[in-house]
């Protein structure tokens, strides 16, 4: 082991050890995330916002190395903005997903980024695209990601139903994220929710004391 290897092994990148999820319900799409950004054992940001704006009805959820996901998101936001200007109408969620995919696939050896792209467009309604580490793109009705997701696969598999109402979806997401935060040391803090529909987007902040399960 030479000096560079030793240095590299000591340097732990700031990651979004995290819990993120998105669910399509009857009428729209609900996104949820915790608020902890960790650097090894240290909580670098206890109130982070992991729900990033791409376009008016397109959002992305980031997990993996924070630096990698932030820069890719910046680039995609720029490209989607330019594209939407030329297009003159709302861009497709699939477009944003594809732009993310190009980055993640091209740089798969040097990036550690896993992203969920979720949004609504007038062509296909609410959509969720999961982009795991290698750069593949998979469309799903619901998606969970981040280190905390390992603890809630059972919960989500059992409790997900198609065509939930907004209330049911909100309960599903907030309970799932709460359960993940309960067990994952790299997730925690408050829960941020975002509701995306044709007509509006609404953010919600669930304070720590109101988290459903802790």
């Amino acid at each position: 082991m030479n000096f560079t290897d030793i240095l590299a092994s000591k340097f732990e990148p700031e990651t979004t050890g995290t819990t993120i999820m998105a669910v399509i319900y009857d009428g729209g799409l609900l996104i949820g995330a915790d608020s902890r950004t960790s650097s090894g054992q240290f909580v670098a940001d206890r109130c982070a916002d992991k729900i990033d704006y791409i376009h008016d009805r397109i959002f992305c959820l980031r997990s993996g190395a924070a630096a990698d996901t932030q820069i890719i998101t910046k680039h995609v936001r720029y490209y989607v903005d330019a594209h939407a200007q030329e297009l003159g109408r709302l861009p497709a969620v699939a477009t944003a997903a594809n732009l993310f995919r190009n980055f993640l696939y091209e740089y798969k050896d040097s990036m550690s980024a896993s992203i969920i792209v979720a949004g609504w467009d007038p062509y296909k309604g609410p959509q969720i695209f999961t982009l795991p580490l290698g750069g593949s793109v998979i469309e799903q009705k619901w998606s969970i990601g981040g280190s905390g997701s390992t603890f809630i696969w059972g919960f989500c598999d059992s409790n997900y139903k198609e065509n939930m109402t907004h209330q049911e979806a909100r309960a599903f997401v907030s309970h799932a994220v709460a359960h993940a935060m309960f067990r994952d040391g790299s997730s925690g803090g408050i829960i941020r929710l975002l509701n995306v529909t044709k007509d509006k987007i609404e953010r919600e902040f669930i304070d720590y004391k109101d988290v459903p399960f802790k």
Partner: protein
Amino acid sequence: MIFNSEFSGQQQHTTQPIVTGGSVIALAYKGGVVVGADTLCSYGSMADFKNVEKIAQVSKNTIYVSSGEFSDFQQVVRELAKIDRSALQYDDGVHPSPRDYGNYLARLSYKRRCKINPLYLQNVIAGFHNGERYLGLVDIYGTYLESNFVTTGFASYFCKAIISNYWNENCTLDQAKQVIRECFKVLFCRDCRAHDVIQLAYVDEQGTHIEQPERVETKWDFSGFKNRANEKLHTQ
């Protein structure tokens, strides 16, 4: 893997901790010593065991708790409990003092360190004997020190400033407890392996008192937390 008696020379070494306990903070106050620890044991990054009462009473006037590998902690509790019993052999009515426990643990830790098979712990022993407070810290290498305040783990980075500013060695029990609660609030916010349910225990002239676990209140509803930069990008 089959255990063959011919290979009985094989010994396990604790080279990395598996189940770990969190930070411990202990402060002396006027009349005794108070110790606080959270009730979480982590399995790597997973918060596996969430209501573990860790603070152990090893004798009438000594309490012991440590951070690090939990199985080593449980083993040490057994070892320390043996000391009082074996002292009965001398039949002279002398019971080991808190300092005796601290010293024993320091020698034990150092011996294990020399065999490259450490007790993966940072230990805190607190007690009250003959009108004097005792607070000792023994680390993974067997380094032994006595002090009026000790911290282990992440608390050593975050909490010493709080302790310097809000505590003095002649404060009251309630003041010392409040300082410890404030320290654990910071730890819960900034340490991934911390939990907001803590347990306090104190030793004074009357003996040891180990309290029930309690939850510390942390504040998250700052307006700056609710409205972050990302939201300003929304054009709606």
